[in-house]
Every structure is written in structure tokens, then in C-alpha cells.
């Protein structure tokens, strides 16, 4: 039963085919059996899960349930969860028990979901392979020699290996979409401001956005119905009611105008990814869509701009980890400066330290205009490119990643090669647009993802377009042998 989509599980729970408690036990058993292999979870909250499952079963019995009541999920360990270890993949927070719930966690709790645990991730969400986690690398369920992608690698692997029915993730430069592509699942990053960031440990505040990691566009719509919407605790969360994302999933695609960025079909894109993309476009044409080439002339600048803006914000966001109030503190500091230096040297991993240094440099007096300000100007150009493209098309479709999942350790020597993994996804964060990755093929036993990008706050249309694809293909239902 644990291999089904959330939509299917929800129907089974409704029909009484099995209880949430049975379902939860099934997932907990699988976690016990397989987490040692994949390292997808940092914390398993078995006791809590069983209590929530029992409560969900009672809610269902009383008829007080929603579609997700009793569905077991996992939260990326970036979301604060009251009384539960919340590490953000770092030694710095390896002892941090959160005193409060993130809004996302609170909303799922209110919907009656069952929390199986907290998933592994790149340290402070900084990485594209899940190798920077203090708790060790996560392994790709399709090939344990390979990375699951990052930074939401634990969530993606847990969903792909059916160690949960669905999971939450966060995406700052591709951290939901790239692991979804590598793990053959559906990953959705909403528009910036659609989901509250309250309780989500900040990496780059102007780019971070939470979203669903799951097995289908329909599941993503079910999760979005819980996650999206205004929150007074987050001033950057838009004050605009979220629509019912399920309502428009079956809208026709007749007359849909699809844009394919010229720049994405250029050098660097693997042939297997390109051919999967072309197949997908053909399918869309058969559903009544037309395909047009669009121009994103500044897209080659996105990685550079991102690696100024994101580290700059991170350098400030991570200043609070100073050993004073919570988290790691070095042993026997001799004075304040020693405490700061050693706490932060010992508590952060090398990728995090690298980004703090890059960001600190970019904001320094004398360099601010040349780096931070310039990067913000590029960000504006990139947004303008998308706005122009969306004058002629309804959705932009391209590759999620240049190739399929790479091997663990393969890209560790050169950070820049690793940074280029996110070449197609980063611009979407800089522009604040909704984007998603859906499985669209296999190559040598590894999944291939394609990326769909929509207009600002047009998530419902994006989910509709992805759902129609999944109604006519079964790539999203492929599962690794576990």
C-alpha cells in the first residue's frame, strides 16, 4: 500500500480499505528496513506518528477529515517542529530542539497528516547533491552509488523509495526540482510569497520557498491546498487567498502556448535529457498545445548573480549561530572572540563557510556596488526576460538538469561545477516564479526530469499542465526496486 500516490491512499483511507495506523506502521517498517541504506531521515518520530495516526483514524471515524487526514509525510529538517530535533543538516544545530512549529508544519498538523520524521538535507540547504549534510550523504534509491540531488535530497529519496507518502522541501536555487528530477518524482516550487516561510530556517530569504515533493501533480495540488495562503507571521507571504488547486487539474490544454528557451537547448544539455524533453513536447502538441521558441537572453548570468545574492543573504542569516543562545558552542572558550571563532569554525561545514565568506566579501565596503548591487540589477533583467517571454506563451518548458544523477563524490573537488548543476533552475528563483519538475523519461536506469515554469502566482495552471501530462504518461509512476 505504501507505494501508491497520496490521492490513491486518500481514497483507500476514505473507503476503509486500511487505517492510517496500518499505513503508518507500514511506512515505519519500511523506514526501519531501508533508511540505513538511503540515509533519508535524520530523525524518525515514531511515537508521534503513531499518535497522530490514531488521532487521524478517530477524525475519519467522526467524519471530520480532509483529503490528507491520516496521510504519512516527512518534513525536510529545515522546518522547525516543536519539541523535535531540527538540525538543518548541520552540526551547529545537531542538539537543537525547536520550541515552535513552522507554519507549514502547523498547517499539515491541522490537516491531520502523520509526521514520520525529519529528512536529511544539505547543510543549511547549501548544496546540490546532499553531500554537505553533517549527517552524511543521502543515496539515490535508483542507484545507491549516486546522489539524490539537493538540497532536499532526503525528502526526494524518501518519496522515491516510498519511505513516506509525501514530503516537504524547500527550493532556493533548485533544491526541490533538481532532487525531484534525479529521483524520478514530482517536485513543485511555488511563486515566492505563496507559502509562509515562518519556521523555515533561512538560507537566502529573498529566494527561499517551501513546496511539495511527491509522486504526482495531483498530490502536489493536494499538498498545496494545505500549504499555500497568507500568514501574518511572514511579511513576504502574499496577502492573497490561494485557489483550490484541485479544481483546475483537468482543464483542457487546447490552445496552450508552450515556450522553449533557446538558451536551454544549447551546449551543456545531455542528449538523453534533450530527447526526453522533445518527446514531452510532442505529447503536449498531441493534447492541443503549440510549441514556440522563447528568448531568455540573460539566463547565462543567473548562476553568477545567484552566487552573489544567496551567499550575501546567507552570511547575515547565519550570523545568529554564534554559540550564545542555542546550538553548538565550542568547548572551553577563553574569551568572546575565541568562542565566536571556534564555535563557527567547528559548527559549520566547509560549503557553508565558503558561502559565508563569499557573501561577506560581496557585501563589504568597496565591493557592494560591483557585486551585490550588480547582481540585483541582473536579477531584474532576468525577471524582465521572463515577463517578455510570458507575453507570448503560457508556460515555459525545458530541462530541469543538464543530465541524470551523478555519482557520490564526483563533483566534490570543484564547487563551481557543482554550482552549474542548477543552471536551469536558478533563474526561476531569481524571478520568483513557480516552477516544477516532473519525470519525463529514463536513461540507463536513471530518471530524467523536465521543468515547467509558470507566470507569477499561476500555480494552478502549472499543476494543470503537469497533471495532463501525467494522465497520458506513466513516468511518474516508475519506482526503483527497493
Amino acid at each position: 500500500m505504501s507505494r501508491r500516490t497520496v490521492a490513491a491512499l486518500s481514497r483507500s483511507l476514505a473507503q476503509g480499505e486500511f487505517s492510517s495506523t496500518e499505513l503508518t506502521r507500514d511506512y515505519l517498517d519500511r523506514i526501519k528496513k531501508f533508511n540505513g541504506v538511503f540515509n533519508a531521515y535524520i530523525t524518525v518520530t515514531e511515537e508521534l506518528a503513531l499518535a497522530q495516526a490514531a488521532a487521524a483514524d478517530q477524525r475519519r471515524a467522526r467524519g471530520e477529515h480532509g483529503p490528507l487526514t491520516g496521510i504519512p509525510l516527512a518534513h525536510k529538517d529545515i522546518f522547525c517542529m516543536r519539541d523535535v530535533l531540527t538540525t538543518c543538516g548541520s552540526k551547529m544545530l545537531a542538539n537543537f530542539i525547536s520550541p515552535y512549529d513552522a507554519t507549514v508544519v502547523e498547517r499539515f498538523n491541522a490537516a491531520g497528516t502523520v509526521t514520520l520524521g525529519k529528512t536529511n538535507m544539505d547543510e543549511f540547504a547549501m548544496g546540490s547533491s546532499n553531500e554537505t549534510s553533517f549527517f552524511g550523504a543521502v543515496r539515490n534509491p535508483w542507484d545507491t552509488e549516486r546522489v539524490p540531488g539537493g538540497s532536499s535530497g532526503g525528502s526526494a529519496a524518501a518519496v522515491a523509495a516510498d519511505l513516506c507518502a509525501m514530503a516537504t522541501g524547500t527550493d532556493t536555487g533548485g533544491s526541490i526540482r533538481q532532487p525531484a528530477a534525479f529521483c524520478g518524482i514530482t517536485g513543485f516550487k511555488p511563486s515566492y510569497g505563496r507559502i509562509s516561510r515562518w519556521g523555515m530556517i533561512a538560507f537566502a530569504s529573498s529566494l527561499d520557498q517551501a513546496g511539495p515533493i511527491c509522486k504526482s501533480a495531483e498530490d502536489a495540488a493536494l499538498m498545496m491546498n494545505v500549504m499555500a495562503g497568507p500568514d501574518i507571521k511572514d511579511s513576504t507571504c502574499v496577502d492573497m487567498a490561494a485557489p483550490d488547486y484541485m479544481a483546475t487539474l483537468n482543464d483542457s490544454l487546447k490552445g496552450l502556448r508552450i515556450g522553449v528557451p533557446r538558451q536551454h537547448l544549447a551546449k551543456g544539455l545531455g542528449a538523453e535529457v534533450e530527447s526526453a524533453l522533445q518527446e514531452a513536447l510532442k505529447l503536449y502538441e498531441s493534447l492541443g498545445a503549440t510549441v514556440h521558441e522563447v528568448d531568455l537572453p540573460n539566463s547565462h548570468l543567473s548562476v553568477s548573480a545567484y552566487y552573489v545574492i544567496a551567499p550575501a543573504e546567507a552570511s547575515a542569516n547565519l550570523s545568529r549561530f554564534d554559540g550564545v543562545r542555542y546550538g553548538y558552542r565550542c568547548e572551553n572558550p577563553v574569551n568572546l572572540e575565541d568562542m565566536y571563532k571556534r564555535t563557527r569554525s567547528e559548527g559549520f561545514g566547509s560549503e557553508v563557510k565558503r558561502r559565508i565568506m563569499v557573501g561577506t566579501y560581496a557585501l563589504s565596503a568597496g565591493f557592494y556596488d560591483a557585486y551585490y548591487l550588480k547582481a540585483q540589477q541582473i536579477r531584474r533583467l532576468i525577471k524582465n526576460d521572463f515577463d517578455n517571454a510570458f507575453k507570448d506563451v503560457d508556460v515555459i518548458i525545458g530541462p530541469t538538469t543538464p543530465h541524470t544523477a551523478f555519482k557520490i563524490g564526483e563533483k566534490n573537488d570543484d564547487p563551481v561545477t557543482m554550482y552549474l548543476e542548477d543552471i536551469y533552475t536558478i533563474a526561476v528563483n531569481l524571478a520568483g516564479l513557480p516552477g516544477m519538475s516532473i519525470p519525463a523519461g529514463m536513461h540507463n536506469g536513471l530518471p530524467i526530469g523536465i521543468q515547467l515554469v509558470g507566470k507569477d502566482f499561476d500555480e494552478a495552471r502549472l499543476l494543470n499542465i503537469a497533471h495532463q501530462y501525467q494522465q497520458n504518461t506513466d513516468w511518474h509512476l516508475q519506482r526503483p526496486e527497493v
Partner: protein
Amino acid sequence: MVWETVIGLEVHVQLDTKSKLFSGSSTTFGAEPNTQAGIYDLAMPGTLPVFNEEVLRMAVKFGLAIDAEIGRKSVFDRKNYFYPDLPKGYQVTQLAFPTVGKGSLQITMEDGTEKVIGITRAHIEEDAGKSLHEDFQGLTGIDLNRAGTALLEIVSEPELRSAKEAVAYLKKLHSIIRYLGISDGNMSQGSMRCDANVSVRKVGAKEFGTRAEIKNINSFRFVEKAILHEAQRQIDLIEDGGRVIQETRLYDADKDETRSMRSKEVANDYRYFPEPDLLPVVIDEAYIEAVRAQLPELPNAKRARFVSQYGLSDYDAGVLASSREMGNFYEEVVKICGDAKLSSNWVTVDLQALLNRNDIDIDQSPINAARLGALIGRIKDQTISSKIAKTVFEAMIGNEQSVDEIIESQGLKQVTDSGAIEKLVDEVIAGNPEQVAQYRAGKEKVFAFFIGQAMKVSKGKANPEQLNALLLQKLKG
């Protein structure tokens, strides 16, 4: 060599809001350490700021009171530095787009001269917590109750030219923020804090000298002393062939001196950038007008009104308008007794002396406006003389009795009965034949002696005018 002191002040005013700038935590002063620090104030991971709109209203109020440009779009920035009482490792403040832009403040010196001082800007920012260095066996304790409290930092142009001007500016600022009700301005509790940028130059020089910043001076008196001391230090230094270096100095009130605190800090790089967790604050004309409608009458307007409405001197009107409480007190006294000038004298002289003597504010006055009004009323209707009134005034302190009861019970009523006064005059004349002879021989100065004797016998209660007339008549006769 004649030197001129150049001073610019940075004043931090703690805004009197119920909750903090970006969190719902209470701001009450004096609570147990760390009991008023919520998860945002503690910089728990994942927490976010939510702007307290009351702070905006207060800042705009202040801006309007000093005739400043109001920022239609203000932007918060992060100022990055590490310190244990700064939980996030950055302070949220406003750098390029403050809520209050250029404005000005008119100050009045003791000799009545006036001067307009430019205000560069006033921006909203959050306060830090406190580091406690005592009682922790060599460790430092951190109290984050104050962390995140809303501050308005008011920056003046370097247009103050003496310590006295600096104090006059501070007092005017203090008066305005209290009029506006945006802060209690209590310097000893730190709700108004002053940093002074001080430099000296030769009179007539165009360039400013190198300045030193004196931090955290916590009373008006210390501001004056610290500036005087620092200016003299710089003058001595230069005259001895030395050079002033740009640095932060701390004023030590016990030793009455400033000393270097951290010259290194000049090179600090705060790496400001726009706070991505907050949207720019955009305000429109309607908002500004709504705030303007809530503005109380301000000191200058009140002073002008006191002059025209009550016929007071500019100086007295200024003293009475210096605080909202004083102005209100005065007007209540006038309403009761109906004599604006007598009221002004009593409030600015006798009552003020009483307050100074006890080092208290007018709202703690042991004699309230109603009772003072009643007292003055009794002078007006000649129940008592002005002189006796001072006795009654003293008797009123710590006394629940009404003015009339005090006059009655202590027998202080003025004697206006002409028969009684005649008896008194006869008594005095009969008892001092020698002086009577002198007077009648042309030594008219002796008249004052008779008045004194009569008052002594009547215990000051005789109506002076009647006494005067009758004595004159009897002595001449």
C-alpha cells in the same frame, strides 16, 4: 587662539509602544532578565519580523512635529556585526531610506536668543539587549528583554556651537517627544540616549576639525559636562602640537572625563544591505494627514498662544509651554482663579521652586492645579495678602485641608476691618513715641518702621493698603 566647538548629536529615543518593533513581546521596563524575549527576539532559527505599525505612526508624528520630509517609501536594512547582546548578529535599521528625512528644531537659549538647528534624519531601528558583567564569575550575562525594542534615532546636523546649545537642543527634543507622547524620554532609564560628535576649530575656519564621538551620556547635565571636557581636551591637544584622532570615547561622570573606548571601530564594516524579510513601508498622503490630525499643540504654538491669549512675556510663556504637563497645569490654574499673570508667577516661581527642591516633575506636584488656583483666588479677592499666601502655600504641602480651611484654622485671614486696623495703628504710634517724633521732624524714612511694626503685631494679616493710608493719616495728623 579663539576656538569654536562644533557638535552634532545622535539621540536614540525608545518609542513607547506596548510591544516590540518586530515581535509581539512586551516592552515593560525592569522585568526579570529574559522574561520579555520571545522567539524572534532570541533570534530562534526560522523566525521572521513583523513590523509594528504603531512605530510608524510615532515616527511620522515626530517627523511632522519637526517639519521634516516624510519618507513615502522607507526601507529596512541589516547592519551586520557580532555582539552577544545582538541576537541575530545584525541590527535591523534604516540606512538609505529613513522614515523621517530633513527637518529642523528651534531652540531657545537662557538669554532668550533663538536658533534653528537642522535635523538630518530620524530612522527607525531595533534596540540591542544588555550585557551584564557582574555576578557571573567572570562570565557575561545576557538580558534580551530590551532586544528588539523600537528606537527612533534622531541625527542632528553639526550645527550646535556650544555645550549649552547642545543641552537646549536636547531639552527641546525631550519636550517634543513628551508632547507627542511617543516616549517618556527618561534619560536615566535609557529611554533617551545621547551620543555627541564633538570637534573644535579656530573661529572663522571653514573646515570641520576631526571629531570624537562620545557615547551614551545619560543626563542633560552630563551632556554639558562631557562636551565641555571633550572640547577642552581637543583644544589642549592641538595647542600642544598634537592631533585629534577619530574615535569613540566614553564619558566617565565620576571622574568628569572622556576616555578612548575603541578607536579600532572606525574601520568597522557593517555590510549593510536591504532586509529581505521585510517589505518596504509605503505610506500615502492620506496616512500622513491622518497622523497630522492627531498631533497635539506643540511647544512653539503653545508659547505663542500663551503670549497672545494671556498677555504673558515671551520668556514666561516659553517656560510654561516647555512641557505639556506644565502648560496644562498652568491653564487649569488660570481657569480656576481667572488671573493669568498671577498664575504665571506662582507656577513659574513658587511652584517651580517647590518642584526643584524635591526634584520632582509637575505631575507629581504635592499641590495640584485646583488648590493652587484656589489659593490665587484668595489673593485676588483680598482674603489674604501675597505675602501670607506664601505661608498658606507652604502649609498646603502634605496637608489635605482646603485653602480656605488652612486660612481659617491658622487665622491667616487678612484684616480689612478699618476699626481693627485703626486700633492697630494707634497701638503702634502710642508704643513708639521716639520714632513718631523723628517722623514728624521730617525723617520720612521712619515710615517703613511703622509699617513693619504694624505687620509684626498683626502677624502680617493687616491689609497693606488700608494700613498704609491710615498710618500716613495718623502720623501726619
